């Protein structure tokens, strides 16, 4: 039998390794579609690490929102745009110093965060979800729909305003566009579409010579 903590540790190292390799892939792969797919893998393995840290909700949100929606959108954009690789790599050396500075600052900040967990428990108390004996997602859901119901609904209202504003600012009724009217299509009768013309079964014999002699065509 494997010790659960050992299993957890093994899982963590496996997911972390995948995350790092995939993240490296994002910035090194030449094909931009591959890079985006590699980013999807990075997100997915990060979500797995969050699961290990008992942040189930964050993990689910990352997969649903980022992998499911944002990255698919990205993929479409990347596929539709005609991106030249050489063009993208042009300024690499020039921007390298700035990039290194930013990277070092971020590294220092992350290292500084390591001690925060112990401080955090001192100021904020224990994790309320574990205290209530619930899973992270369950607790979050209950809090959202009881304690934070009002802010949650106001946020929904803000999203509604976003939709109304987007439509109001972008929808243009242009003249001359061709479109179908479903109601008219359904209400159509056979007589509107097909006209039955009564004709004699045979061509009258007397007419034929008169047609061939065209008075206009004179030499």
């Amino acid at each position, binding site marked *: 039998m494997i010790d659960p903590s050992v299993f957890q540790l093994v899982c963590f190292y496996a997911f972390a390794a995948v995350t790092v390799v995939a993240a490296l892939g994002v910035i090194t792969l030449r094909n931009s579609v591959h890079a985006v797919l590699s980013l999807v893998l990075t997100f997915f393995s990060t979500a797995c690490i969050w699961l290990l840290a008992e942040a189930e909700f964050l993990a689910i949100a990352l997969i649903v929102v980022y992998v499911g929606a944002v990255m698919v959108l990205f993929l479409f954009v990347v596929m539709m745009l005609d991106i030249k690789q050489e063009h993208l790599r042009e300024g690499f050396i020039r921007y390298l110093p700035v990039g290194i500075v930013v990277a070092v600052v971020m590294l220092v900040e992350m290292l500084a965060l390591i001690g925060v967990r112990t401080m955090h428990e001192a100021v904020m108390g224990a994790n309320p979800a574990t205290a209530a004996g619930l899973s992270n997602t369950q607790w979050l859901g209950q809090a959202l729909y009881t304690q934070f119901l009002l802010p949650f609904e106001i946020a929904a209202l*803000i999203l509604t305003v976003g939709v109304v504003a987007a439509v109001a*600012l972008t929808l243009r009724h242009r003249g001359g566009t061709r479109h179908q009217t479903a109601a008219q299509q359904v209400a159509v009768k056979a007589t509107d579409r097909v006209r039955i013309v009564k004709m004699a079964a045979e061509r009258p014999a007397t007419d034929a010579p008169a047609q061939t002699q065209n008075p206009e065509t004179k030499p």
Partner: protein
Amino acid sequence: MPNLNDILIMLPELYLVAAACLLLLLDAFMKPEQRSLLHWLSIAVVLVAIYLVISGQPEQPVRAFGGMFVRDGVAEILKTFALLCVALVFVYSRSYLADRKLYVGEFYTLMIFAVIGVMLLVSAGNLITVYLGLELLTLSSYALVALNRDSKLSSEAAVKYFVLGALASGMLLYGMSMVYGATATLDLATLHGAAAHTGVPNLLLFGMIFMIIGIGFKLGAAPFHMWIPDVYQGAPTAVTIFIGSAPKLAAFGMAYRLLEAGLGDLSAHWQQMLAALAVLSLAIGNLVAIVQTNLKRLLAYSTISHMGYLLLGLVNAGPEGYASALFYAISYALMGTAAFGVIMALARAGFECEEIDDLKGLNQRSPWMAFLMMLVMFSLAGVPPLFGFFAKFLVLQSAIHAGMLWLAIVGAVFAIIGLYYYLRVVKVMYFDAPVEGTEIKLQQDPALRLVLSLNALTLLVLGLAWGPLLGWCKSVFPG
């Protein structure tokens, strides 16, 4: 656990949300010719909301949704006047919008959503509700400013407003997160006690400074005023009139909630900062307004100076100061709607009437409009016996009672400087000859003329009989 009682406390807001959604649906199924039905319905919806706010007002302040929402006297008075402003905006803007192909249902819906934001903001009992109410208000405002999407000026104003507004919201959130970090609570009532409990750590002070920056942005107080002139000028006048009225009431409500209800114990710290903001706003607003030739820009700088006066009332940090600031906010909202109302009454298709020179000789062409504009300008300048005079008098008095005589003197000096540019407008209307080849055509909408006249005459009536309104303002701030 929220229950029915919580919902009943929030009845006016919930009613407005439902009504806004219904109006949105109605608009989708209505022919453009029937839009005047939507117009009158929107006005009726807002008036009913005023009735619900006043009739359902409880005797004592009540809290709903675990303290997220507070319904008290301050909220009632602010909501009443914010809704009244929106109703006035609807009445004034109809023919203006119709002339510019902006007469669309979204104008009404977005406006109602914005005023719901105002109502939530002034009733907020929690930092989260403050932020969300504010975002609801500002997001609707961004869209409204950009509504005239074929105008370059309008789009530019909307982008500036959006970027600066997002920055201000970020500052506000940053401050809130610091305050949360220092006190471990988001609830404003708990926060009020917590400051005394934990002492005043630097983190709390920093959080307060960032929140004051956010408030300054929303008030449009210098040095956070840069967006005001461009937005006032670029937005369609029908939107400018809104931005100049209800959101100012909301900004006062926000300042009151955050600074008094939340950080009241720290008043000794924020009084000095507000005093600095007030002096800067008075100076920049009044001095820059002198050189303006565009009427909307002039009114924008005048707003900045008026926010300086409003801050004079807040600096007092006592019931008297809050009452005078509230009184000032109401007076400014009524004066602002009347001023932009006159501009909209004179504007027509292809003519905005936004240059001061457009008003030349207005008295010979439309004596009544010239008279109304004169009333508004005198009131804005603070000439007795108009409404604006008494409002200025009260805030100056409360600054003196707060022991800041120098601040009151600065306020009085700048009031005299400000007199110059208000009187210039009056001079142009009464003593300049009309420009040859131009004409002034009044909008024919009888509702607009009637309500605008009433609005401007109210400034005179309230200037003579200010007692009841001041009594109402004072009664909501228990000593």
